[in-house]
């Protein structure tokens, strides 16, 4: 059985606020391969290309045949608990704050034994399913859950540290007028978000999306225009200390590339929304998020950027839009580094074309908003950093990993 988390309570300002600390984040270069897999939610370990031995902990050559032929491959994610312990003492500040802490020595079905963070409902000697997840230092760790997890397993106090579950947390959804807003707000609400602030600029403009959002439970509309520094500052002054998850869904898509463009007004707008908008949000909301990364059981935990997959490789038909997304992506890496001391995760969800008015001339497959919302929720629960949503985004990611020049020449998605 998984112990139920106490519900979030109003903060008592006379009580000690737990300050953010990180679990030990030092890793060898080869172990950062695990972090790369965890960031995408893959369970991949090094496998020897010569003899097939699965390696763990990571190394630079095969521990069995000594060949220089290790590659990262997805492997069976199941195993059996050989031994377990509950730590009542730790040498590290992060864990000292969170004792007792449960660990297991797990025999992986794919070969090696491994130390893993153990879910509370793992049975002694039982079968478990392992995952590579990012811890609060942003580094990969192994977590183990029973093959059939409890319905309330998302509550697990310890494994919750590796994810950014919206349950009990307060969310700021930046733009209520995009086609994704109602689906995201609804999904966050159903996932148990305690309050959902939804930003809207230009309140005099009618918006079907905003009307749909307005009627959802736990939603509070707030004025927010990411192209206006004062607007962002004023909102942060009001609710900055309450936001535990920020979902930046700012969106300004127009067609066109560079050569045949009459002026730079549209590209400037794209930069204003996607790049400078993110920067303004980071300046105003970043400090409080980082400071509250360990503030109780429901402290600040994630910053989500909904980005176009064309942030990764320019689509000339959407050339300047792609460029502004690339600028936002680069800034998100800076944000990720700056929020890491607070243990706050930056999740970039790379989306393929959406089923919306701006993608009328783009052939299918196109993403329906509920698909995006489901993916973002999974990314938050699993604590991912990089999420490719839908077949187009997934294909571009695969092709980029294989041959970036090929996709640069042949992008027709």
């Amino acid at each position, binding site marked *: 059985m998984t112990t139920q988390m106490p519900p979030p309570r109003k903060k008592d300002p006379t009580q000690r606020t737990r300050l953010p600390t990180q679990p030990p984040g030092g890793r*060898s270069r080869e172990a950062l391969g695990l972090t790369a897999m965890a960031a995408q939610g893959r369970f991949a370990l090094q496998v020897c290309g010569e003899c097939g031995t699965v390696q763990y902990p990571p190394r630079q050559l095969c521990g069995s045949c000594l060949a220089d032929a290790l590659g990262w491959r997805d492997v069976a994610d199941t195993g059996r608990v050989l031994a377990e312990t509950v730590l009542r003492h*730790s*040498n*590290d500040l992060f864990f000292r704050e969170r004792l007792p802490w449960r660990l297991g020595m797990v025999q992986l079905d794919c070969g090696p034994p491994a130390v893993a963070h153990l879910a509370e409902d793992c049975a002694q000697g039982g079968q478990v399913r392992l995952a590579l997840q990012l811890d609060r230092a942003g580094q990969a760790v192994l977590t183990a859950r029973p093959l059939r997890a409890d319905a309330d397993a998302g509550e697990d106090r310890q494994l919750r540290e590796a994810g950014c579950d919206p349950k009990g947390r307060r969310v700021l959804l930046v733009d209520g007028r995009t086609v994704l807003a109602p689906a995201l707000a609804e999904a966050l609400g159903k996932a148990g978000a305690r309050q959902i602030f939804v930003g809207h600029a230009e309140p005099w403009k009618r918006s079907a999306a905003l009307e749909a959002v307005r009627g959802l439970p736990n939603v509070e509309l707030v004025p927010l225009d990411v192209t206006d520094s004062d607007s962002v500052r004023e909102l942060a002054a009001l609710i900055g200390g309450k936001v535990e998850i920020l979902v930046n869904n700012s969106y300004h898509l127009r067609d066109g590339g560079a050569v045949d463009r009459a002026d730079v007004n549209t590209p400037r707008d794209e930069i204003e929304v996607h790049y400078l908008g993110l920067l303004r949000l980071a300046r105003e909301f970043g400090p409080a998020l980082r400071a509250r990364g360990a503030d109780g059981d429901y402290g600040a935990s994630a910053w989500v950027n909904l980005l176009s997959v064309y942030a990764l490789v320019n689509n000339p038909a959407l050339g300047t839009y792609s460029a502004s997304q690339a600028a936002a992506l680069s800034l998100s890496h800076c944000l990720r580094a700056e929020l890491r001391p607070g243990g706050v995760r930056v999740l970039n969800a790379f989306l393929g074309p959406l089923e919306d008015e701006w993608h009328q001339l783009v052939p299918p497959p196109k993403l329906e908003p509920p698909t995006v919302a489901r993916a973002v929720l999974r990314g938050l629960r699993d604590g991912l950093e990089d999420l490719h949503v839908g077949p187009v985004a997934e294909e571009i990611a695969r092709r980029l990993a294989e041959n970036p020049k090929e996709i640069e020449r042949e992008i027709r998605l």
Partner: protein
Amino acid sequence: MVRPRQGYDGIAVCVPVTVPYARYSERSAHWFCGRALAALIAGAGIDKLEVDGLCVSSFTLAPDTAVGLMQYLGMSPRWLDHVPMGGASGVVALRRAARAVQAGDAEIVACLAGDTNHVDTFRNTIASFSQFARDAVYPYGSGGPNSSFAFLTDHYMRSYGARAEDFGRLCIAQRDNGLRHPATMMKRRLTMEDYLNARPIADPLRLFDCVMPCAGADGVLVMTADRARALGLPYVRILSTIERHNAFPDDPIQYRGGWAMDVDEFYDMAGIGPAEVDFLQAYDDYPVINFMQLEDLGFCAKGEAPAFVRAHDFTIDGDLPFNTSGGQLSLGQAGAAGGYLGLVEAVRQLTGQCLGGAVPDARAGLVSGFGMINYDRGLCSGAAILAAADE
């Protein structure tokens, strides 16, 4: 066909020294090693430069190694070794030094281990203990060896039905021995009630299952028996030794150590068996590893240590005197010197130089070492049988 190993005829181990242990120290490892060397030289009554070989073990000498230490201490050895094998360091150093003296590569070898313990030393040592530990163990709760031995203890208890009381019996016997030692860090008698009610550290381990990290140094001299006699030094002979690293790599979790691979050869070479030794100095950073040594060194069969412990008395006056100085569980774990504790105690027992309780008429004793939880198991094991010099 494995060639038979040469014996250690004509080799003497003498001058067991200890630089007093301290819970914390502002001194450096260099200081502890240097004071151990000074004690060895004074104890032998020789000139400093007559020591022409050194074998050094330390966790806290960084950024230096044994090489830098030679300049620091003004030594010019013609033979130098650095044995970074933690709890197996004493036995392994003994083997290296004995062969060097036997072959004429060195005349007098000082074997020593020394470590300091600043307030943050232990944490820093375990945080960067090994690449595998840093990548795949320390980020998991940062328990250090406590969590590793908790796994081994949990697995052992479930596999062989050992109870907490069984481990407690051995810990209590060791504490009784320790209370007879003037330098014991743990100064109170341990009752079973104390043991069982102690603060839990990492289930199933409780406080008195865990050694206390401290600073200190230990050492011995290795030379020819002729030389020892000429210097008038009481000495012991080496009947047999073994060492093994990364034994049984395919065992999913450690339930036996490298001794099990080499135990037959070990006793064949010694010409005596476990029943003929007068005491056992085992490596005791956690009681479960004591149980494995009792089994793997042939005092009882695998899985029978719990019953064996219930049936025997491990105090100095008992039928199997065990860790007669009190062991690390009483005296503390001075880093790599913990790997020398059994060796210096064995030499003291067999040469009539005990600091604490003496085993009556001890003629032969077994010293065992175990070290280096690099990832999920202790990698180094070693053992030696020492015998009193013939009259």
